[in-house]
């Protein structure tokens, strides 16, 4: 029974990490309408920029995280403006954009390896005792992950519902030509979306690194299809669906690790992905007019 | 028995999308050998109806009977194999294939589409391929596209793409051709040519047509029968002259209003 509660707790933590990454991916998909296969590299950027902030620039960890997250957002905008936007403007089909982002993942991941090396790194976090919360038991880092995720998701929700930018994003996500016709500056909104998507990926990467303790360039990329599974489960392009999907996948992965073997926990995410595609390909919350 | 004469019978078709009722009870018949028009204001559900008839969208209730067979809810390719071919609202040629190839795809149940035949018995499909080729060249000549046969379909003009769409459909030997706004966005001269082709196909091949059309002049000249739709329902059926006398139809078509409102006023 203790094991059950522990696993449930870890599942929530994994779900929190996943939801940050999944919302970033889903948001960008909703606005630009193509999947970014280089997203795993953005997670890695988040980890390594933060690492540089802490180890290289001697920033306190919280400041290093902010630095890492913002730097990843900027990287994401730069990549979009220099590489993806020209193709989109030329009218390249989504089909080829997928190949381009796939190629981009190879470029960026190897760039990260060239800059930061191939070995495993870890953040300097002072070791402390687990905190007990009722039947649950968390490390302070895990509590921080859940807290950061919850705060960030509330912030994203407020951004989307309360600000002009957020409303423009939602309008583009629903119907891009209509949004353009109503006078929304779609280029600007698209760039902000990439920035936000990059920030969320960066934060997802940092929290993932907190959770796994050790990380290297490909840590985020092996996690990529788990993020896809969460996004598709939630309904591709659906922000709240992505949050829900992330929590479900997080729980499934941890319980599969408990029941079967931790070597096969990712396979459980794949099983969910397959089941969703076979039974309910539109996801929990379907995207009208996009499927 | 007028029913025997009907190649297509649609009975009380219903379909909604997330709370919006796109089709709320469509019933009509298409008589064999006619050109039947489907008219109605924008948003009346004409394209949804075409999709539901052709198997692209599954209706939630109702029946579609084609040539005596119930085809309700059958997948697209099975509907097509039974002899009902539909075209799309915007021209959807195979862009990076030549005009001739666009036609060569259409013949149904080609033996050369089976891997075993291709790898082990190529002579089997070559004879068939020759027949299709001769046929395709004839059809292209009929439609005045012979000179363009080796051009990529994407390089055709808008009007030529419309002709290609029809030529490609003819190659599939349909008994019923459902055209979704075949005249949209083409110049008046070409409208006449397309209309001539449609009449010729009906007279020469006995193809029945059901066409969604906005241009009422074209409908009047071309169509034997007209089905009027508004807000997801079929309102009336008859010749254009009969419909002009029908106040309800005129009101619905001009205002796009709900039939109930019209009835309340009448």
């Amino acid at each position, binding site marked *: 029974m203790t094991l059950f509660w522990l696993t449930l707790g870890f599942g929530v933590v994994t779900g929190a990490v996943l939801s940050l990454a999944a919302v970033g991916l889903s948001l960008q998909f909703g606005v630009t309408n193509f999947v970014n296969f280089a997203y795993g590299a953005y997670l890695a950027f988040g980890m390594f920029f933060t690492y540089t902030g802490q180890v290289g620039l001697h920033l306190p960890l919280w400041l290093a995280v902010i630095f890492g997250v913002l730097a990843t957002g900027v990287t994401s905008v730069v990549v979009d403006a220099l590489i993806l936007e020209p193709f989109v403007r030329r009218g390249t089909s989504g*089909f080829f954009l997928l190949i381009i982002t796939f190629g981009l*993942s190879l470029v960026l991941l190897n760039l990260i390896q060239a800059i930061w090396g191939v070995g495993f790194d870890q953040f300097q976090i002072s070791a402390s005792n687990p905190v007990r919360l009722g039947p649950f038991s968390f490390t302070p880092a895990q509590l921080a992950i859940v807290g950061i995720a919850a705060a960030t998701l509330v912030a994203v929700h407020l951004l989307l519902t309360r600000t002009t930018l957020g409303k423009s994003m939602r309008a583009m996500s629903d119907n891009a030509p209509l949004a353009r016709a109503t006078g929304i500056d779609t280029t600007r909104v698209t760039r902000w979306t990439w920035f936000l998507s990059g920030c969320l990926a960066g934060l997802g990467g940092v929290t993932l690194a907190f959770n796994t303790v050790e990380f290297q360039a490909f840590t985020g990329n092996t996690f990529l299809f788990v993020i896809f599974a969460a996004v598709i489960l939630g309904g591709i392009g659906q922000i709240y669906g992505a949050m829900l999907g992330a929590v479900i996948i997080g729980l499934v992965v941890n319980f599969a690790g408990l029941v079967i073997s931790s070597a096969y926990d990712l396979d459980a995410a794949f099983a969910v992905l397959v089941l969703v595609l076979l039974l309910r390909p539109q996801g929990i919350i379907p995207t009208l007019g996009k499927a | 028995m007028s029913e025997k004469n009907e190649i297509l019978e649609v009975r009380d078709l219903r379909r909604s999308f997330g709370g919006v009722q796109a089709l709320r009870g469509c019933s009509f018949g298409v008589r064999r050998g006619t050109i039947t028009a489907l008219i109605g204001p924008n948003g009346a559900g004409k394209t949804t109806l075409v999709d539901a008839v052709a198997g692209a969208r599954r209706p939630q209730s109702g029946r579609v009977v084609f040539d005596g067979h119930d085809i309700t809810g059958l997948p697209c390719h099975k509907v097509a194999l039974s002899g009902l071919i539909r075209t799309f609202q915007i021209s*959807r040629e195979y862009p990076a294939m030549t005009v001739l190839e666009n036609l060569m795809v259409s013949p149904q149940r*080609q033996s050369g589409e089976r891997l075993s035949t*291709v790898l082990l018995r190529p002579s089997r499909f070559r004879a068939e*391929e020759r027949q299709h080729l001769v046929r395709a060249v004839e059809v292209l000549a009929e439609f005045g596209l*012979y000179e363009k046969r080796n051009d990529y379909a994407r390089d055709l003009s808008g009007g030529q793409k419309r002709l290609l769409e029809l030529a490609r459909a003819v190659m*599939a030997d349909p008994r019923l051709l459902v055209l979704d706004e075949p005249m949209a966005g083409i110049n008046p001269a070409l409208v006449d040519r397309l209309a001539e082709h449609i009449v010729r196909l009906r007279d020469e091949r006995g193809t029945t047509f059901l066409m969604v059309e906005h241009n009422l002049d074209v409908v009047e000249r071309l169509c034997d029968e007209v089905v009027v739709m508004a807000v997801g329902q079929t309102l009336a059926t008859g010749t254009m002259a009969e419909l002009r006398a029908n106040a309800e139809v005129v009101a619905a078509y001009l205002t796009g209003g709900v039939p109930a409102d019209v009835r309340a006023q009448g």
Partner: protein
Amino acid sequence: MGVVLGYVATLGVYFCVYNIFAFGLNIQFGYAGILDFTVITFMAMGGYMAGVAALGPSQPGSGIYYILGLSLPWPVALLVGAAAAGALGYLVGLIALRRLRSDYLAIVTLAAGSIVLGIVSNSNSLFDGSEGLVGVPQPMNGVLKLTPNAYTVFFLGLCAVIMVICWLVANRIYRSPLGRTMRAIREDLDVAEAYGKRTFRIRMTAMVIGCVIVGIGGVLTIWFVTALAPAGWGTSETFVVWAALIVGGRGNNLGAVVGSFLVAVLFNEATRFIPAISSLPNLIPEVRNMSIGALVILTLWFRPQGVVAERKARFFEVPLRTGSLEPVPMVPAPATGSGAAQ
């Protein structure tokens, strides 16, 4: 002399093998428009299964464990490998081809690839885990008793023969009504469906035959290297095949050959012989991978149709009003070079 010959023959073998991979991917992507982002997994499946079919039973005391161990002759092992790759392709296709969206398909192939990689690496009893298979017998090596360099030349001949057979098969499919329908599905799946084409079945055919061909390339790989481990088949290897096809020209088997030569042989294999910088041992592979990714992006920008554009299908000219001639279906005409990305 022998060393140079052996080196050239080695590059020749890589050329043939990458040609085969590119033909397989071309049938999937170039013909049918299937985004297979895990080509190399099917190569591995072909290689492993041929390996365990040809190897003797795994010895309990050796610390090397693998399934089967049937000691089959090499032609049978080749068939086993090809069939296994095709079967895996069928399984992936069952999930991936159900959906119309090409991004779902790409996600499923990518996910399936990492799952297979995970299972093979973690399971010691399947193909000896992360150590991989070693000592796979080479075809006729025991019979011929050649020097290593001479054997490489012999093996190049074997690869060339198999490559040419794959090329002929791929071309025949391209020119058949099956290939034409595959391309029609690539251009517009909904329309092909509306014309009565069984799009799922035809795409599945493309998926499986592509995987079988890639699997054959995998068998040749494990024969040549005599070993295969999970470290040898990752995303970057998949991308080399993609780069070969995109740079050479998709939808066109000659393009696949040109691309394999440019990317896989000149670029990828030749740079392996540049001496590594001792302080940065990984820099050269990293720069190579980055360059291959960049090469694809630049090709799609500057010459989206590739070096050799997809050829326009030409039919034997049928004069109007006659039907008595002997037209040969589809004789390819010279490339026009006008094909842009759609």
